[in-house]
């Protein structure tokens, strides 16, 4: 009995770094747990490259995986538009689709066969907004100008304003920007108490952090806060000391001191090198694969899509690297803890140290606000 898993991530193009995180998480899981299956059941992963935010390619690949390779699972997908293009297909073909990143809040609604183990942006930005209102009066928001940025901005502002904060300005930065200086200068001139940032991580995160430092915003007493993307673990070491003291809310940190996470990080470093830190996407990919394996074990390798979805809807893992997680049976979206973190030095290296659990077993708030009529 062989169960085929179609894995679609981004291996080439400017966002290959993010696909790489997913890839590493998947492969690590497969390497360590690939044999923990009922006797006679094997798993065959098929890795495919969608080259970035390229929905038609993603859809084509998914279609081929379904039609030609006859996969029983689809997973991966960094990009929301790619996931959105694939989702209708999964309904038609009845192939469970476990999203390991694409965070557009609306995706799971598109098909009954979609479940998501990653996150949505409101899930971290909204509680951060509520928290920030307790600490700061005036906040400036700077987000990347694409859908996730807009979602993060909306959610943060909603949370922040509801709790009495004042937004002194908002800027949206084109996605291709390498130089954040003009935007950060604007922030500096507005003299807010804090700046809320969202960017797609990677070099954008570093560039914004550098601009924050170079312009002396920190010296001017402007606090830097945001979703976990701005201090993603895989990129954090590139940012230098400028990042110290940055506050973020997110569902995963490589510095988390849960035993499950320690084991995960240790395994990751062993596999990919001492210098490598798993980012949140690697952790999610790990969980996604765990979920799939869970299903395979439950069904003993004889996969039935509807049964699989049933299992997925009731999936709970008290011991994921990011703490306890579960799938919300109603929305098929993730329920997880959100942590308040601060960048500090641990053993001479920068780390997102978890300060507190800001929300426990937290659902995506946005679906609550936008309930289908």
């Amino acid at each position: 009995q062989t169960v085929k898993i179609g894995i679609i991530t981004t291996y080439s193009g400017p966002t290959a770094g993010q696909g790489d995180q997913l890839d590493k998480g998947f492969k690590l899981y497969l390497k360590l747990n690939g044999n923990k299956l009922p006797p006679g059941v094997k798993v065959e992963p098929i890795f495919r490259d969608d080259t970035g935010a390229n929905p038609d390619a993603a859809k084509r690949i998914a279609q081929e995986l379904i039609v030609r390779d006859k996969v029983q699972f689809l997973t991966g997908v960094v990009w929301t538009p790619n996931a959105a293009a694939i989702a209708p297909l999964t309904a038609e073909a009845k192939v469970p689709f476990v999203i390991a990143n694409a965070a557009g809040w609306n995706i799971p609604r598109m098909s009954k066969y979609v479940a998501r183990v990653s996150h949505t942006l409101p899930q971290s930005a909204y509680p951060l907004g509520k928290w920030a209102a307790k600490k700061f009066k005036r906040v400036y928001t700077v987000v990347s100008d694409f859908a996730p940025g807009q979602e993060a901005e909306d959610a943060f502002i909603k949370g922040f304003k509801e709790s009495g904060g004042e937004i002194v300005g908002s800027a949206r930065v084109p996605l291709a920007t390498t130089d954040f200086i003009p935007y950060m200068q604007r922030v500096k001139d507005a003299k807010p108490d804090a700046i809320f940032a969202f960017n797609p991580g990677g070099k954008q995160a570093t560039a914004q952090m550098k601009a924050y430092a170079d312009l002396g915003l920190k010296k001017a007493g402007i606090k830097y806060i945001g979703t976990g993307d701005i201090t993603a673990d895989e990129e954090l070491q590139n940012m230098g000391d400028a990042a110290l003291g940055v506050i973020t809310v997110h569902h995963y940190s490589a510095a988390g001191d849960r035993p499950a996470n320690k084991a995960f990080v240790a395994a990751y470093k062993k596999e990919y090198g001492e210098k490598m830190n798993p980012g949140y996407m690697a952790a999610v990919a790990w969980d996604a694969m765990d979920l799939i394996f869970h299903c395979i074990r439950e069904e003993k390798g004889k996969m039935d899509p509807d049964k699989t979805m049933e299992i997925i809807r009731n999936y709970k893992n008290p011991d994921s690297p990011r703490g306890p997680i579960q799938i919300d049976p109603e929305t098929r979206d993730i329920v997880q803890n959100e942590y308040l973190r601060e960048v500090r030095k641990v053993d001479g290296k920068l780390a997102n140290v978890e300060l507190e659990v800001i929300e426990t077993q937290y659902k995506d708030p946005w679906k609550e606000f936008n309930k289908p009529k």
Partner: protein
Amino acid sequence: MQDFLSSLVMVAFHGLAYGMILYLISVGLSVTMGLMGFVNLAHGVFAMAGGYMMLSAMSRLDVPFPLAIVIAFCAVALASMVLERFLYSRLYSAGELEQVLFTIGLIFMSVAVARLVYGPLPQPVHIPGYLKGQLHFLGRDFPTYRVFLIVFSVSLVALLWFGVERTRWGAMVRATVDYRAMAQSVGINTSRLFTLTFALGSGLAALGGALGAEIIAVEPTYPFEHLVFFLIVVAVGGLGSLRGPFVAALLIGVADTACKYWIPEFGAFFIYIATIAVLLLRPEGLFGKAT
């Protein structure tokens, strides 16, 4: 008013610094594409190589920053000579479409190689302590590294101007592009001239890639991602001129910064609208020669 003035100063400064980075990286392209007439879309490959060379030299060999820059320049210039001899030189007489195909092929290959060697993530840059922090003058803070970039680029443009535009060398390259056979007939060793010129262009790209690494992250897809900007600088500046790209980079840098600062909603549109406007009014670019 005070506020406005001080933001004016900051916009001018940051715009200048940003423009200088654009210039540093693009000036090499105005040598290979502008002077030599080779549609070298793979220009970014040499810039990327320069960045990687510098970073490797610093992190693996513990070479100090200035030396690492020199190494990057020399290594890339040398490597590009080999490439020129074996590959590029065969395509001077080919059509521009063939050159496009070839250089895109080169980009593809180099992207894969860079990924294999350095992985998909951007490389961390550690500039030396004396270039970190801020310089304080005019009652304002100016990031030291950007001040350094400005000074460096201005010296470079002066050097290039006297070294290239004012000597017979530039004329010889242009003559070779016009009529290669005739250029040889007046005693120009065209293949050696082109090899050296190409090496200079690539070396300059490497210099730009290395010095700009702090601001424009070095990663495998670098040659693709910034191509549009290099092309814009060269086209707006005007082919065949070395001052053109300088002025163009400067204008683009300052105007782009100003636009992002004052009307951030249009941040993404500005550069394209400006390009369209300039090229409609002056198709040959700001400093290009009308033909």
